[in-house]
């Protein structure tokens, strides 16, 4: 298996406060990885460092490329569409993506729009939180890249929408692409995860295959994750 992501000694400080330090992480191609950790653990920061939106120390290689400008052609990230005015319609946002991303698959986007039941004639201001999250997921998954970074795609949305988003992730993830999903609610995504990465104590505290967790500790992903915080399981 080839590595889609290789992080070496990554560190990040904001206003002299350490957010992440000594992060080493390698992800293989074709996996669905859960990036787990409590609020403020540094999950979003880690994703932002990978995309180059945040500036840290250390080395990040995406598909073997260490330059941030080149990372972005391999990575699709769930950005919150802040570059658009509230009056922008969803189909206009899609036009923007179609124009600027050579890897944007319009037909795939249309399929996602149908599957996620998105009304593309709506303006961004008119979207509910769940609907906006669906639009972001559709835009993110419509790109054909090696690494997808989904930052808390289920926060604040109803269970039906969550299930649809999870289904879309399974259905539209290319076989050779890796998908990193950050969340602090583990139960709903646990069944689809190949690996988990736990961010704790400002670093990658644990990185394990889901099957290995079940075999080694005799517990599910959620129980394992909670036990790390309770201190009943020590990571290696």
């Amino acid at each position, binding site marked *: 298996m080839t590595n889609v992501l290789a992080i070496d000694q990554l560190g990040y400080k904001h206003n002299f406060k350490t957010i992440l330090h000594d992060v080493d992480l390698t992800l293989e191609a074709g996996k669905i990885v859960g990036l787990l950790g409590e609020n403020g653990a540094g999950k979003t920061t880690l994703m*932002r460092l990978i995309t*180059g939106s945040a500036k840290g120390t250390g080395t990040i290689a995406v598909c073997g490329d260490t330059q941030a400008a080149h990372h972005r052609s391999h990575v699709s990230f769930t*950005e919150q*569409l802040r570059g658009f005015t509230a009056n922008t319609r969803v189909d206009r946002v899609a036009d923007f993506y179609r124009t600027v991303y050579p890897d944007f698959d319009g037909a795939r986007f249309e399929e996602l729009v149908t599957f996620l039941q998105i009304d593309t004639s709506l303006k961004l201001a008119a979207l509910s939180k769940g609907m906006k999250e669906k639009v972001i997921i559709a835009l993110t998954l419509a790109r054909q890249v090696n690494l997808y970074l989904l930052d808390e795609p289920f926060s604040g949305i109803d269970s039906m929408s969550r299930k649809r988003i999870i289904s879309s992730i399974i259905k539209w993830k290319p076989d050779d692409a890796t998908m990193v999903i950050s969340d602090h609610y583990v139960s709903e995504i646990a069944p689809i995860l190949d690996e988990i990465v736990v961010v704790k104590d400002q670093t990658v505290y644990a990185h394990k295959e889901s099957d290995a967790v079940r075999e080694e500790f005799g517990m599910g992903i959620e129980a394992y994750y909670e036990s790390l915080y309770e201190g009943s399981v020590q990571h290696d």
Partner: protein
Amino acid sequence: MTSFGALFKVMSRGRFRIMNWLIVGDFALVIATMMWAFATDGIQAGDIFWTTVAWSILAFILAFILLAIQTERVYTRDTYRLLPLGETKLYLTDLAASLIMFIYFGVIQLVMYAVAEAIDNRYLMKFFGEPSITTGQAIKGVVGFVILGLAFVILCWTTVSLVHLVISATNNFLPNTSRRLINFILYVVVIFLVVRITAFLFHEFNNVGQLIAGGGTTQLLINIVGVLVVAAVEAILNILILKKWVETIPN
């Protein structure tokens, strides 16, 4: 990688719309003012032309500010910073999109001046009487004025960007107290720069006619190049800061 053409297209689309709204607003204000004048004191010779010019000055200032806001937004928004391209292309395309839209706005304003002058029965020609300079000198004067004006617009935008990017970069790694101090120093520097640049600008524009009439084209060119060189140095600094230190606003 995102091409220059694709990026320019998406960046200029919103700015084009804003400029059009501004043109419509400007035109509506000119019409409203003339209707008001017609209903009260009546319209005198030159009223249409000077009303158009007066509202145009305000519209130009607004166009400059609105385009500066659009330009600056790009640096801290993931929508643009996540695009697969380098910071140099992002910065230069952003600046070019604003400049082209400013030129578009300026051309429409010139058309409005010409229409107003025609409606006003060639008021301006009568006002100034027999010109003391040749047509060639007049054309050179107008071209010099426009190029110098655009050079100053570029310089002002690169200066605004420099301040914005320095503040944005320092906000990421300095503690709050130091941030406030740096911001205060930057504000003082900016106010000083604005005052100096404005004084220089007025001096230069006053001299454009004299430079052309007196055959001082070389001096005018030197001034334009000087302004553009300073803008280029600021642009290089901006790209460097953008690349190394400026982060986007987090989700």
